[in-house]
């Protein structure tokens, strides 16, 4: 399969860019890596899996949502239906990683937002 240049990441909660709000360089390194490194899944799909928005087809949307929000419920069958829909195992690997990192990034960002708000109220 032809390698592509991916662009997951991008806009996050409340439409803000992940680059704008205090990720340390080492976090930026991981997220930039997922954006820029050549891969097997199409860049828009990696972006969608990271952002948990606009993922198609439905079987892939269901899997990435489970990875993000209910990971203990992921089954062999969830992966199997995505493979049956024509995705390769390498694409599946990339899209699961993007979904996991995307959700963790949103949680991290929510924590930083709460810290900033707490510091404002403490002044």
């Amino acid at each position: 399969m032809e390698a592509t240049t991916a662009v997951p990441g991008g806009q996050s909660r409340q439409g803000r860019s992940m680059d704008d709000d205090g990720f340390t360089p080492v976090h930026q390194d991981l997220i930039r890596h997922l954006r820029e490194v050549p891969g097997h899944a199409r860049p828009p799909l990696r972006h969608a899996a990271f952002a948990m928005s606009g993922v198609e087809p439905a079987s892939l949307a269901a899997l990435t949502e489970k990875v993000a929000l209910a990971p203990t419920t992921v089954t062999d069958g969830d992966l199997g239906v995505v493979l049956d829909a024509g995705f390769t195992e390498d694409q599946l690997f990339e899209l699961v990683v993007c979904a996991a990192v995307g959700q963790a990034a949103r949680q991290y960002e929510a924590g930083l937002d709460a810290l900033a708000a707490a510091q404002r109220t403490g002044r």
Partner: protein
Amino acid sequence: MRPGILEHGYRLRDKALFRMIATFSGQPMPDAARVTFYRPGFYGAAAKRLTHQVMRGDSPWTVGERELMAAYVSTRNANQFCIGAHTATSCQALGDPDLVSAILDDPQSAPIAPHLAATLRILGTLTARHEVDAEQVRAALDAGATPQHIRDALAVAFCFNVTNRLAEAFAFEQLTSQGYADGAKFLLRRGYR
């Protein structure tokens, strides 16, 4: 592990490394480590750099406290692989398994510093609800945590909110108690690189 490429799709030199480690340690290479060898240019190399810096780099938290946070986040995510790995590591680092058990059960009633208890409460809320309010963070600051304490704890949570999800999606195989103990020794000696 699933899918099959994560079980069999490694470079020959990596397969040889896995066999060598299994031979010398008597334990299989943990899946959390193996997965970072699969196409490392996509995820594994960057993830190892991140995790090592967060868990072993400069921080007002000790290594043991950060391992405890990893175990606590994993507990809230109910991820058995990382609970086993980081409970063992925090027990070895802190030298008090009973205390670690008490903290993981209920940080608020455990005999620990107030700023650590309040910070664990933030991580627990964030992990379970995907958000946390400013009042909980303010309580941690009032209990003695600095903004750097909070940022570093959030970074630990980031790392393990990723790894817990990959462990479930890719079905990391659980280790024996001895396997987790041996892995903990390795993590404390060598870190995550």
